């Protein structure tokens, strides 16, 4: 049942990412809903599961834009590993640290994505990073915290042990 719920959530977020997110972009920066879903899903998981979930979510995202098939899969599996390895157990469960976690996840994800999409050109990477990634990461943090708050408001039986959905 949990798997089906996760799959449905992934599909809904994927559709939102493709259809709605670009409409709420501010100054060219838009939140990465898939990354928020990844954080929510892998926060209290073991690194192996986190890597696999990250890979599958990234691959799903890659299917939406297949010109760099594998790019988001690589970035999200790395981010998933980092969150599970250094996030859930070490960071306290409060809004600020969750925000820091999402922010860091966004930056790692964007660094990988920018490097691959610009063929490791440092100038392009740095330009795009400071121009879009920082604002996008902040935007993602705001949306992510709202979603985490909403999830905490859900009845306990809909929330997995440990807080993740």
């Amino acid at each position, binding site marked *: 049942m949990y798997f089906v719920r996760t799959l449905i959530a992934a599909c809904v977020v994927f559709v939102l990412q493709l259809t709605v997110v670009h409409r709420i972009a501010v100054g060219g920066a838009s939140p990465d809903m898939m990354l928020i879903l990844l954080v929510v899903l892998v926060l209290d998981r073991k690194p192996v599961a986190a890597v696999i979930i990250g890979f599958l979510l990234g691959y799903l995202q890659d299917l939406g834009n297949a010109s*760099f098939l594998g790019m988001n899969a*690589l970035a999200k599996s790395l981010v998933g*590993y980092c969150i599970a390895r250094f996030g859930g157990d070490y960071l306290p469960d409060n809004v600020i640290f969750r925000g820091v976690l999402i922010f860091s996840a966004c930056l790692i994800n964007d660094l990988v994505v920018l490097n691959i999409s610009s063929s490791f050109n440092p100038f392009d990477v740095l330009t795009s990073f400071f121009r879009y990634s920082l604002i996008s990461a902040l935007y993602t943090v705001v949306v992510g915290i709202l979603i985490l708050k909403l999830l905490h408001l859900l009845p306990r039986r809909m929330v997995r042990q440990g807080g993740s959905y």
Partner: protein
Amino acid sequence: MQILSFLFEKHLEKTVLAVVMALSVFMLTRSEESQLNSARAVSSFLLYPVDKVEEYFNSLEELREENRELREIAVSLYQEQERMNQFRSERIRLRRLLEMREDSFFEFNACEVISRSSNRFHHSLTVDKGGAEGIRVGMAVVGYRGLAGRVTQVFPHSSRVMLLNNKSISVSCQDKRSRVIGILNWERGNLFRLDFIGREEDVLVGDTLLTSGLGRIFPQGFPVGTVFRVAEDRAELSLNVGVLSMMDLGILEELFIVTGGRDWDSDAVFEQLEAIMSKDSIRGM
């Protein structure tokens, strides 16, 4: 074994991460075309149920539309049938008065094309009705608009149909307007030539050709084609008459095999039609 134990027991996390990253890099290093192809394949696999549901709802809409159109056609056909019934009774009465012999009209067996011959000059196809359904060699095959060919081989549940666009088939045809008779031979594509038409014969562009029934190869009265060219050839004694086939012989899907004649007095087809109409009217109430 030691390596496996090292990888999957002591460093499972790092091994999984390395495998996943290697897989991602492998996908990234493939050519753009193969990336797109594999993405398309995975997407179509994942979206297969969605596509099926969408297809189902689209087909429902199409069926509803088709059903509405068919109902409209059925209503006009029902009225036409009433008119034809009167003509039929009158015709039977007059023929009896004139002591003419009994004649018949045709019975059809609907069939679907299941394969086509790939030979460029020997156009034939296979239909899904055969000997078990009463099909015999030599029966004429028609489409919605006119003659298509004849049955040349019969198997238990399929038959081979030789189409009109064959050099080995000639059809005796009659001009519907002037009743001039000629022999139709295939030229290319859906174009035919009407041979043995004298220079003084009355054939005009736009005339419809029907099967004449002479030779008893094809039954009489089926539309075959329309005259699109009538030219006088000075060197020849006959007219050069070009005919365009009624049927597009390249895209046949559903056909009807003329399985035999039925007496004009038989009411079977009308009873069948009335049963369908009454069922429709009950449903519409």
